[in-house]
């Protein structure tokens, strides 16, 4: 068994070097496809991350209260609204606190607010939702409640973003499946060429009593090695590109919806696993497919 494994590994390396062109073509195509896949992965993870951030930020409904409402009225309204589903918490924000937050948000331009003679902001209730689905109902109910002046809830915007990100994810998923199938086909046909050029050799092996595994083992390992090498190459290229991109965009332009790019370290570690697993399985499946018909002698 052990000797068999050593034989397989030695023979696999020998074959990769012997079929330089085919090995090269396979490695090229698998790593190219892994790189494309990496770009999609990068896209989905970031879109996903962005979506989560957006959800986190927009799961709040702000209910502005009429000036005549007292704190007690506010608490009454809060109690009514909190019986609705998906309301996680309701916080009372009085106008002074609201002004304070305003100043904070404006930062060094807060002095502009000093020109205001008195605080124009209303008291409000800040409703945290546990999910986005029931948000519109809560907003609807709040709007018709006596004592409520206005309700701010970015439902449409949120839904738009969500449906875009869902679409991106669907497309990515289909692309990834497609790429995997394509690369399995490429690998299996390159290995098949290699196998065909060795058909005589394989037949002779069978005549002298080689088991299928004696023939198959080296080819399987050959495919897996090719996959692993490709994964390494793709990972190197993608990591480099991603680090450059996140260096470039990291703090600046891509602060879309206050969401930064996902950290390079995290991405690269995950990509490493994904690439290795995918590369090796593509290599293995490719060689298994290409070997099947040659082992019947």
């Amino acid at each position, binding site marked *: 068994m052990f000797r068999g494994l050593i034989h397989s590994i030695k023979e696999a390396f020998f074959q990769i070097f012997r079929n330089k062109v085919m090995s090269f073509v396979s490695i090229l195509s698998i790593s190219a496809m892994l790189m494309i896949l990496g770009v999609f992965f990068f896209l989905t993870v970031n879109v996903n991350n962005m979506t989560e951030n957006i959800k986190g930020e927009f799961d709040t409904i702000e209910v502005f209260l009429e000036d005549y409402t007292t704190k007690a009225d506010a608490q009454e309204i809060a109690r009514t609204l909190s019986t609705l589903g998906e309301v996680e918490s309701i916080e009372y924000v009085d106008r002074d606190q609201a002004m304070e937050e305003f100043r904070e948000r404006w930062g060094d331009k807060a002095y502009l607010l000093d020109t205001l003679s008195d605080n124009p902001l209303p008291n409000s209730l800040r409703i945290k939702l546990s999910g986005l689905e029931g948000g519109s109902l809560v907003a609807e109910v709040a709007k018709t409640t006596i004592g409520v002046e206005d309700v701010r809830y970015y439902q449409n915007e949120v839904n738009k973003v969500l449906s875009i990100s869902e679409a991106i994810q669907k497309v990515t998923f289909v692309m990834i499946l497609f790429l995997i199938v394509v690369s399995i086909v490429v690998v299996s046909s390159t290995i098949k060429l290699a196998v065909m050029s060795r058909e005589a050799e394989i037949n002779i092996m069978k005549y002298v009593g*080689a088991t299928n595994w004696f023939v198959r083992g080296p080819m399987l390992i050959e495919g897996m090695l090719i996959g692993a090498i490709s994964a390494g190459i793709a990972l190197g290229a993608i990591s480099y590109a991603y680090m450059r991109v996140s260096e470039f965009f990291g703090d600046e332009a891509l602060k879309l919806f206050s969401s930064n790019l996902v950290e390079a370290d995290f991405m690269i570690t995950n990509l490493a696993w994904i690439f290795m697993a995918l590369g090796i399985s593509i290599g293995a499946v490719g060689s298994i497919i290409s070997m099947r018909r040659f082992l019947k002698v």
Partner: protein
Amino acid sequence: MIRFENVTKRYDDITAIDGVSVDIADGDFVFLVGPSGAGKSTFIKLISKELSPDSGRIFVGGQDITRLSRRRIPELRRQMGMVFQDFRLLPGKTVYQNVAFAMEVVHSTRRTIKRTVPQVLSIMGIADKADQLPQTLSQGEQQRVAIARAVVNNPKLLIADEPTGNLDPDTAWEIMKLLSQINRRGTTVVMVTHAKDIVDRMGRRVIAIDGGHIVRDSQEGEYGYDV
């Protein structure tokens, strides 16, 4: 060693072997003769389990191989050596490697291989060619390499499909001497041939096949056909 019981093998519409029953004893030396298309190669392929019969039963070395699972074919093949008209050597490997290869397949240790291969090469009279590639050898020498490979694992049975078909008469006779030598060491030999002079000169058992039937089986036979 080999026993056919009422064996029939068809290819689509041709019946290549038609209800053949025959016994070949351990240590026998048997010629299989007959006109082209008679079914000789089919007979050989049934023994090596390259083909399975449509009906009847086949035993090799006491084992019923009629319904042998594919997984167990390697085990069967290791009990036999095979030699072909076209030698079937690996062009990229040296003579030594071609023979050693058959031992690697059965997982012999490196030490055993190193000890055994030179011995076999020298018995075959090609010890000095060990490091050459097959294509640089003469036809006769190539066939010696093929025989060396076939017998290096000490098989109980050697089957040869026209092993002298590509050789001139003198070289063919040299090969025949090697095969008899192997047979004298106890290996059963089954050989397909069209060479009347060899069959007549050896005076061994001859099984004549025609149209898928055994038409003659004589212990100290002669070729019996005018080719």
